[in-house]
């Protein structure tokens, strides 16, 4: 019997988090992700050792996450763009103090209050750290409810493994849409590796402290290099991407999250008229899947980056390719949603132009 059920993206993240062992959730109301907070208010109460707090602010929520993470608990908060800006202080501290935590950003139109429509305007903020200081945040960008579910569990695993904050970067579309999904069985928390760094009272061991203040520049430098070595390991180990019909492609469309779904529809349409076009979808936005781009550049002369913003990921594409291929961009910001037909037209026009130039 199939265990598949129809679930909203925000609900799927929440349920997957519970099953991944999340035992502390703090959040603050903001559209379009309130369903996640509401789901958690019920789900955390339903488990004996679960805690739900509707915090007085985004700042309080992320700092409660810091406290819960200090005890070794799997902890999560979620918000949408303006709220994520407020959480950046805490994310910087999580990175500095090497605390695991999962942060969900259901992106909406911005800057400022913007609107509540799906957008990808927070790519820079998410992948460049977002808060102050020399650090990185692992950023995962799911493109379906099924993948939201899987990557929620992955997020908690990466957070614990690397002792670093992990961001799930979705958008209003991803959070609201209903899709069939099969929930994995809950994990057994007792089987997780112990966290000898966690604070639980100095019983039978020397006292511990968790800090980020390192007044001596040589100690701060050492700490920064320690973090950097960790980021290099992450960059080596976890880049993840999906390819679609790229084997014989002359032109590869690059997009993540919701934009990648639209782009996939466009690639299907142009394939029907015989254009050799494929799709490369980064699943990890940081670390960026640079190597596959470099490999593809041996045969692919043109990449078309499509984003629901004015051009952010396109910078990582250019940095990865270092001039090996042509990089083109098409974007729509502000919460507007392109159709596959619209993207197909952009592809067709670019494809013919480039092939004509070559011819």
């Amino acid at each position, binding site marked *: 019997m199939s265990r598949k059920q129809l679930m909203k993206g925000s609900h799927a993240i929440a349920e997957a988090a519970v099953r991944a062992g999340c*035992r*502390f959730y*703090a959040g603050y109301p903001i559209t379009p992700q309130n369903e996640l907070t509401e789901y958690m208010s019920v789900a955390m109460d339903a488990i004996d050792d679960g*805690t739900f*707090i509707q*915090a*007085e*602010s985004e*700042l*309080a*929520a992320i*700092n*409660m*996450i*810091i*406290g*819960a*993470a*200090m*005890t070794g*608990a799997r*902890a999560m908060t979620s918000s949408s763009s303006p709220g994520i800006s407020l959480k950046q*202080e*805490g994310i910087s*501290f999580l990175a500095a*103090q090497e605390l695991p935590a999962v942060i969900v950003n259901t992106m909406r139109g911005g800057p400022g209050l913007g609107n509540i429509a799906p957008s990808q305007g927070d790519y820079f903020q998410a992948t460049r750290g977002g808060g102050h200081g020399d650090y990185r945040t692992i950023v995962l960008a799911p493109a379906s409810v099924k993948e939201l579910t899987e990557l929620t569990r992955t997020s908690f695993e990466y957070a614990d493994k690397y002792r670093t904050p992990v961001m799930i970067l979705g958008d209003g579309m991803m959070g609201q849409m209903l899709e069939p999904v099969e929930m994995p069985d809950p994990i057994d928390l007792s089987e997780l590796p112990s966290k000898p760094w966690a*604070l*639980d*009272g*100095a*019983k*039978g061991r020397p*006292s*511990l*402290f*968790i*800090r*980020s*203040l390192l007044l001596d520049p040589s100690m701060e430098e050492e700490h920064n290099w320690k973090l950097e070595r960790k980021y290099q390991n992450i960059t080596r180990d976890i880049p993840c991407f999906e390819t679609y019909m790229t084997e014989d492609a002359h032109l590869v469309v690059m997009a993540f999250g919701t934009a990648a779904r639209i782009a996939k529809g466009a690639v299907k349409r142009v394939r029907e008229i015989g254009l050799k076009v494929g799709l490369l979808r980064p699943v990890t936005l940081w670390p960026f899947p640079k190597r596959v781009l470099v490999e593809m550049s041996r045969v692919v002369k043109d990449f078309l980056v499509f984003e629901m913003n004015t051009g952010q990921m396109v910078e990582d594409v250019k940095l990865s390719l270092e001039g090996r291929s042509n990089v083109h961009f098409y974007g729509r910001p502000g919460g507007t949603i392109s159709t596959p037909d619209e993207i197909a037209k952009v592809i067709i026009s670019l494809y013919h132009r480039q092939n004509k130039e070559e011819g």
Partner: protein
Amino acid sequence: MEKKVFQRPKYLKDAPFHYCPGCGHSIIHRLIAEVIEELGIAERTIGVPPAGCAVLAYDYLDIDMGEAPHGRAAAVATGIKRMLPDRIVFSYQGDGDIAAIGTAEIIHVANRGENVTVIFVNNGVYGMTGGQMAPTTLIGQNSTTTPGGRDIVRDGTPIDLSEMLAIPKGSTYIERTAVTSPKSIRQTKRAIKKAFKIQMEGLGFSLVEILSPCPTNWKMSPVDSCKWIDKTMTKTFPIKVIKDMTEEKK
């Protein structure tokens, strides 16, 4: 036979304090260490130091400690306490930390009745940053950002944070003390001990506000600083039990 009458408390590390001569932090650290020892809770106590001079409390207190961003100690303490309800969790916060940048957090921690203890050190200035006006700086008091004295029109009045925190039903015990004399230090210790006991009994939010000298930024001698607290600061911030619902909540 020689009898030892004074020694370092068991849970104060053997490290010289970095605090300025006459600063109240070292006295307050010692009192916390004594109370933790006397209550036998060192193995299950977790402290949350603030941003400010006392951020280095973990260099002195020999218990588990987790540093909070500026103003957020009460929120961090909430996260710790909710996950480990049988541990004793306290935050240690200065006046700028708790009564300016962290006002929202502390009011809501008190309002939720979180079963945590707050040590609120009020010295009326931002000490670590060099003596700027704090939310608790007195009217007319000089600071580096109120060189002509705090002006009621320009700068507003000193905030009665502890009195504000007494309003919500969630708060159980709030007392204001000082560390200016052997007597007031003993009273401060009694208040800290009572606050921790309230938490141990699960009776809700407790806070001790301690008027504490900052001779360096006040540009006074340590002795004059103590006199100034007793004669002047206590007019705005009177020494008293502001709220005590311990018996009612039992």
